[in-house]
């Protein structure tokens, strides 16, 4: 199977990939394509509705919302990617090990997962952020500490099935080492579902960032970040709707891109939708 032929044949994947590609490009080119500086205030131009000069209007400091949305992309892609990559790696490792070894290792890891799952998610994230001090790094750490659990669960369930599959048994019978069996044979086959999930997870992470900003912690001002922009636009939601709407819509479009890409990736990687 040629991967890139598959890509070509998948319109859904094409749309998703295009959205993501455009976003990544926009993030990379932010300094060149954003018409204004994202943090420079101009109090004479506050709360202006969308116009040709300011496509998405201006916020309460007179900053150009369009430029902030573009610059926000940098932070948000980073959040979406890093906030998923760390949990993904940790969860995948833990899930593989737990599923493969079973027994005591599995029991201990699963109880740990139970603890984290049963633990109110927000307490954990808020506490971790409070302990480490607000900011992107704390947010990543918090998301990683909490988020790996879903991946571990997904992977473990897969590995539990796959380790009894004939090709895993075949690998044992061929005298392969445990590490090789786990990471060369089981993991690549178990990971597809998690890859798909990670796409929705990226959006969920973004929204968690927004929720945490709404509750009062989050990225430091005056950084442009969509979640924060939505949260900061709250006071103006009835008067200057554009401050919230455009970053909100951007989250939606990004979510859309990720989901489509994830769905299609799933098909390509051989998961049913």
């Amino acid at each position, binding site marked *: *199977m040629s991967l890139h032929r598959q890509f070509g*044949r998948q319109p859904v994947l094409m749309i998703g990939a295009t959205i993501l590609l455009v976003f990544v490009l926009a993030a990379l080119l932010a300094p060149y394509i954003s018409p204004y500086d994202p943090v420079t205030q101009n109090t004479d131009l506050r709360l202006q509705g969308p116009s040709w000069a300011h496509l998405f209007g201006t916020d309460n400091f007179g900053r150009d919302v369009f430029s902030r949305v573009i610059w926000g992309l940098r932070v948000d892609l980073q959040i979406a990617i890093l906030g998923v990559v760390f949990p993904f790696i940790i969860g995948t490792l833990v899930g593989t090990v737990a599923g493969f070894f079973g027994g005591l290792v599995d029991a201990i890891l699963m109880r740990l997962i139970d603890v984290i799952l049963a633990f109110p998610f927000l307490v954990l994230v808020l506490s971790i952020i409070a302990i480490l001090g607000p900011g992107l790094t704390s947010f990543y750490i918090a998301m990683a500490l909490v988020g790996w659990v879903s991946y571990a669960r997904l992977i473990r369930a897969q590995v539990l099935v796959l380790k009894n*599959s*004939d*090709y895993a*048994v*075949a*690998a*044992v*019978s*061929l*005298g*392969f*080492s445990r590490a*090789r069996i786990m990471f*060369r*044979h089981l993991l*690549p*086959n178990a990971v597809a579902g998690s890859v798909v999930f990670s796409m929705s997870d990226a959006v969920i992470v973004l929204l968690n960032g927004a929720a945490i900003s709404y509750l009062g912690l989050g990225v430091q001002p005056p950084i442009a970040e969509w979640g924060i922009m939505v949260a900061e636009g709250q006071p103006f939601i009835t008067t200057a709707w554009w401050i919230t709407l455009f970053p909100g819509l951007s989250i939606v479009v990004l979510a859309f891109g990720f989901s489509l890409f994830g769905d299609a990736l799933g098909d390509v990687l*051989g998961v049913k939708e």
Partner: protein
Amino acid sequence: MSAPVLAVTDLTVTLNRPGGAPRLLLDRVSLDLGKGEVLGLVGESGSGKSLFCRTLVRLLPSRNMQIENGRIMLGEQDLAQASETGMLSVRGGRIGMIFQNPTSHLDPVMSIGNQLSEGLRYHQKLDAPAARRQAIAILRQVGFPDPERQFDAYPHEFSGGMRQRAMIGVALSCNPEILIADEPTTALDVTIQAQILQLLMDIRRERGLSIILITHDLGIVAQTCDRIAVMREGRLIEQGRKRELLRSPDHFYTKTLIGSHPSMPSPAMEKKALTSPPDFRATRDKPLLKVEDVDVCFAGAGSLLGKQSGSVRAVAGASLEIMAGEIVGIVGESGSGKSTLARAILGLTPITSGNVTFDGTSLRGDPGAFLAKLRRETAMVFQDPYNALNPRMTVGEMLAEVLKVQGRIPQVDIPARVGELLDLVELGREFAERRPRSMSGGQCQRAGIARALAVNPRLIIADESTAALDVTIQAQILDLFRTLKEKMQLTLLFIAHDLAIVRNLCDRVVVMNRGQIVEQGTSLQVFEDPTDSYTQALIRAIPDIDPDKSLLPLADREMA
């Protein structure tokens, strides 16, 4: 033949491929089915047998397929033109289907009884209690011993054979005139297969049903059908009365099909019969593999509170010796412990008691050394060709990995060796780039064998490595094994359902029943003169291609 109940003329089905020319899947198929007739539909895998039957009730497997042309006359009605609502009363009510794989066609979350009464209530407009009574009667008719209780049981609580019968029951519940049975016995062992075929014949007698029976086993056709139709590449290449067609086939493909049927005495077999097999026991003092009194138990389900409820003794006190260079077959019905024994021998399933010795090292003696030696000098070919290969690796990567881990040949020589291995199993070298999903069952099977050979093993255990293949490919693989035995002094432990193949290939045969070895001996001894009653039943259940040697006698139906 009286007026046909079903007359198919020029049925053509095409598959529209996005960005490609449409493919012709059924090419002007014309076929009649008479009342009370049993029609056998045979042909190679992928020839369109299943598709033909599904087209009859307009349940095409893909949206991209369409009936291009042709008529399907059921009485006065042309099903090819009938409306979708019109089809509702035809499906089930007039044409019933028994699907090839009951496990996937029965609804796992609905009780067997309800699946039966669904049809009764819908087609015969019975009320719930009446439908239940009727369903119980059908369950009894298709051979459920305790239908009142089993009415409420779910599919997974039954064995494969029982599920197949339930599937027949479901089809019968709609009281159809025509029954289409798509390979109703492929997954089953011979004894159960015989029972099910017998059941179909009984029902035909009782209800005057017309039956289309699809199979790739000519033996079955010979035993049950009135007429035979042969398909190949979407075309009906030949049809005719059973005896005539078997005796004097026209088409070369039909000839190959008949010729490669395992119940036909092969040249190798003839030779074996003449020169009595070498007695390995006498020539070598020490066996390569020695299995002593092995027990394997599995913990039953639902024992978390500590109580060991219902543990399964999959292998019970098996003892076995295999000499170097010998081909030994293991036969026995489904669930008799064949695979478990194989895995236990290779240390893939822990044994509960007993001992295994391989070339001097023993499991009880030094487990570490024993396993290390096993991993280097033995290999297994798995039953299911698709599942035994890592779907993410190409055949080349897979073989190279084995060679690398074994570390017997230098890194630089690996690609060359991979090529050699592919040659050995008669796969083209270009297969090194292919992944299992793009390969046919037979090709996967050969890749699996190549992997086993990469180890350079002294012993190969092949677990039902031909069950999924149609006869022509089967024959190829068996030839490969024979050649390897000659060339490489390979020792082979060959597990199979299909007694005919074992008889053809193996020097010695071991018969298992319920975890125990009930009989072993040379192929000739076991097949010509079985001592154990179970073995006798097993052998008698082999459908012979000769229609005059009848199927399992009625008297034996109660056993097994």
